[in-house]
């Protein structure tokens, strides 16, 4: 321990952030003009941070691998964003949002960070509305809310099924305003290849122009990494094809500790895998669980008949259906947290009740919602004694207004009409709670290197609640980093521009070149995707929804061997000094092959089950996660020591002064 200082301010929970803002150093507006900041990644966290820092007066350079900042994968978030506004008057408060988040994360996150998140959540909504984000509204013109998993209030704001898109476009618009003012220089189709340290401080990056292939040096007084999560280590996930861990991993290799890598969220409602050709998985928003009921057949023979196409799900009577979430968790029903819902689906499918060809799918059924809404609509429309067809039609219209784009997406992919037959869903890798270790100021263990959004580990513990990722990304970017980074930069007002013609930049650039040369000089037996798919299979089978000691040990050996094979035999066609998508992929997969091993090592060392980390050896008689607060109430932060298997563990003890640790129950 010892070397990890979380820098949580002292004092009562509700005053910590205000006190901290009053205590930290500021940089005066004239001096901000002399300070450069690099922001890597332009999703909600990076885009919001870049816009706000530029607005404050810093000179900002942004980098993204996409062709436009607006295409970062935050755009794909569907359901909504949480905020403790209590507009519904249902008893919500900052404390409740804080409590739900800590509990949802299975008591593996910091009180101070999470309370701050809850505290600024309301302001995010004000901010976004001021920017013109078209949130859903009620007929009276006020903002509408819906419910998400793991909570008992309606605090989720949304813009149809495209909330992430609208929030990202808001942050992108704020960026555009600063680009137009010349305060942000946007480097699109650029990838960060390495972090450059000068005298132990992060002072720049080596980037590759993905169009020309040119290697570039960029310096700054601080570097912000907001590059998202590492779910693609599983190959199949709901992440974008290009989502990768490279920036975070390069920083890790340079001294930034990597925290809780095994805390990964497997989202319960995704479209099931259809075949080996599949390149990615598609999420069906958690908001669907507001109205959809999850079930499998009660009898195995019915499940088999459905799998073989001999029986239609709509033909099965109510008595023959097992609404297993409502049965097991009557208090939260279909809205239990994601980790719980995912494991319950796996349990039913493993027991032989799966409903698609592969036996790995359960139903998400809207029939009762359609009927309920249809009756309500008929009543408010003044229709007396409407027939069943009219009720269904009216109900389908209401459901379409709520989830139309999701239903359309499902129909295009699966070729079935979800208004008429229940959706088939199965869990898939979606989000990574683990990430770069950061203190209260969002600074990593490298001075001057900050991390925001999904890329850091900070707020979600061992499981993230729905609609909290957007909240955290924007909180970090708009409201936290712009304050805390000033405290560090106040020492740099006399530093002047950082030169790039120094030996530190030269060495870093040479290492980047050497690595690319090495990638293109393999014996050329297998493609990059071949290795990525193999890695994904190991991760999914041995580090997925349920883990055990034996298989984790096997995973470590297998990943290590696969990495060796990769570096000897990978085939990367084309050259390093031109546009080359295979080379881009190769660099990313090379880092996943290291991260995957650390992931397994972390999962192996954590001898407890908590949140998304479920160790088969540690469960209650009812199959619920069995946490061990005595021995594992800490953040596991790993220090790079060469091979992933040699990584050194540092523990940050989690202190709970305001919340009593309990066994999580949603029953």
């Amino acid at each position: 321990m010892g070397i990890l200082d979380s820098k949580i301010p002292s004092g009562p929970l509700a005053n910590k952030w205000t006190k901290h803002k009053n205590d930290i150093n500021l940089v005066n507006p004239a001096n901000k003009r002399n300070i450069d900041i690099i922001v890597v990644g332009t999703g909600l966290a990076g885009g919001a941070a870049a816009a706000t820092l530029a607005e404050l007066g810093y000179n900002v350079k942004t980098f993204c691998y996409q062709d436009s900042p607006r295409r970062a994968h935050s755009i794909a978030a569907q359901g909504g964003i949480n905020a403790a506004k209590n507009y519904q008057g249902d008893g919500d408060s900052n404390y409740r949002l804080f409590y739900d988040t800590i509990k949802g994360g299975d008591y593996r996150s910091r009180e101070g960070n999470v309370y701050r998140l809850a505290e600024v959540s309301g302001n995010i909504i004000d901010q976004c509305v001021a920017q013109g984000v078209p949130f859903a509204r009620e007929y009276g013109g006020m903002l509408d809310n819906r419910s998400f998993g793991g909570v008992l209030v309606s605090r989720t704001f949304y813009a149809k099924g495209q909330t992430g898109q609208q929030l990202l476009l808001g942050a992108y618009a704020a960026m555009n305003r600063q680009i137009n003012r010349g305060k942000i220089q946007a480097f699109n189709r650029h990838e960060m290849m390495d972090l450059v340290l000068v005298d132990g401080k992060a002072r720049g990056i080596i980037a590759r122009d993905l169009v020309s292939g040119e290697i570039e040096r960029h310096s700054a007084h601080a570097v912000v990494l907001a590059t998202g999560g590492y779910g693609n280590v599983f190959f199949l996930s709901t992440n974008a094809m290009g989502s990768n861990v490279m920036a975070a991993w390069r920083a890790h290799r340079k001294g930034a500790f990597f925290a809780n890598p095994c805390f990964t969220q497997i989202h319960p409602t995704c479209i099931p895998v259809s075949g080996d050709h599949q390149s990615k998985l598609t999420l069906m928003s958690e908001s669907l669980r507001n109205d959809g009921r999850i079930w499998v057949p009660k009898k195995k023979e019915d499940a088999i008949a459905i799998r073989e196409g001999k029986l239609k799900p709509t033909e099965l009577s109510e008595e023959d259906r097992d609404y297993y979430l409502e049965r097991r968790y009557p208090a939260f029903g279909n809205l239990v947290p994601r980790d719980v819902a995912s494991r319950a689906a796996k349990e039913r499918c493993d027991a032989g009740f799966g409903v698609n060809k592969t036996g790995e799918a359960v139903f998400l059924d809207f029939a009762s919602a359609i009927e309920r809404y249809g009756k309500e609509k008929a009543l408010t429309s003044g229709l007396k004694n409407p027939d069943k067809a009219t009720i269904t039609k009216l109900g389908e219209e209401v459901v379409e207004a709520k989830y139309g784009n999701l239903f359309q997406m499902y129909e295009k992919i699966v070729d079935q009409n979800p208004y008429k037959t229940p959706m088939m869903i199965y869990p898939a890798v979606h989000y990574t709670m683990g990430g770069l270790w950061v203190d209260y100021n969002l600074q990593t263990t490298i001075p001057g290197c900050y991390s925001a959004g999904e890329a850091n580990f900070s707020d979600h513990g061992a499981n993230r609640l729905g609609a909290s990722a957007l909240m955290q990304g924007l909180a970090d970017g708009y409201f936290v980093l712009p304050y805390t980074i000033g405290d560090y930069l106040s020492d740099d007002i006399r530093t002047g521009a950082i030169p790039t013609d120094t030996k530190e930049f030269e060495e870093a650039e040479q290492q980047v070149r050497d690595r690319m040369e090495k990638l293109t000089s393999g014996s050329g037996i297998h493609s990059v995707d071949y290795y990525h798919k193999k890695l994904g299979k190991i991760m999914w089978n041995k580090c997925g929804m349920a883990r055990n000691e034996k298989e984790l040990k096997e995973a470590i050996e297998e990943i290590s061997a696969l990495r060796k094979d990769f570096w000897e035999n990978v085939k990367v066609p084309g050259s390093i000094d031109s546009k080359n998508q295979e080379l881009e992929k190769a660099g990313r997969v090379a880092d996943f092959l290291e991260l995957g091993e650390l992931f397994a090592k972390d999962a192996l060392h954590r001898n407890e089950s908590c949140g998304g980390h479920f160790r088969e050896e540690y469960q209650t008689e009812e199959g619920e996660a069995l946490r061990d607060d005595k021995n594992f109430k800490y953040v596991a932060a790993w220090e790079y020591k060469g091979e992933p298997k040699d990584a050194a563990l540092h523990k940050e003890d989690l202190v709970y002064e305001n919340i009593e640790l309990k066994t999580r129950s949603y029953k």
Partner: protein
Amino acid sequence: MKLYLKIWRQKDASAPGKIVDYTLDGVEGDMSFLEMLDILNEDLISKGEEPVEFDHDCREGICGTCSLQINGEPHGPDRLVTTCQLHMRKFNDGDTIVIEPFRAKAFPVIKDLIVDRSAFDRIQQAGGYISVNTSGNTIDANTIPINKYDADEAMDAATCIGCGACVAACKNASAMLFTSAKVSQFALLPQGQVEATERVQNMVRQMDLEGFGNCTNTGACEVECPKGISLTNIARMNREYLAATCKG
């Protein structure tokens, strides 16, 4: 199924391009169009050839990165989908499929099927925002009630993913549907009124500077738009522009 592919190959922006023929076997209906191209690329890599480069990222129809002119139509024959959500069940065994990049003067080819759509970014930088600081010191979100119909209509305009299909579909390579969707989102909301005059003027000026063509109301853009952005937005932008011009 077996497919005959005719694909545009171009080494870089300055090199001449040409159509190259490929035959691909073993394609299944459940594959997406991009997964079909993945298989072709695996095949090319194993033969020691350079794979076909194409833009793609989220593969769930929202990021707007994927493009492709498929048999002459942006995002292919299906309606209201992007190429990543187009599935091979829309094609038949033995079909010939012509795959080209989006064609427009303002979208120069970078490599193979990849084009440069940064002109869209510059149009938005010219005024596609509301000038509020992101410091959080704003009024409570519910202070200004907004009529639900207006909010919904603004949302419909805001769902544009900026893919450029409208430009690729238009015989004049006009960007009116894209630009008008951005203008409309703000024109429909009270927050957007303060800067309405400058916004529409600046965005239209930038659109013209980028070399997009004029609108002749053929409506091809609306038909091909994967997000169903309505032509009404163009009418609204024209009205906004006229009003702005009258104001001076």
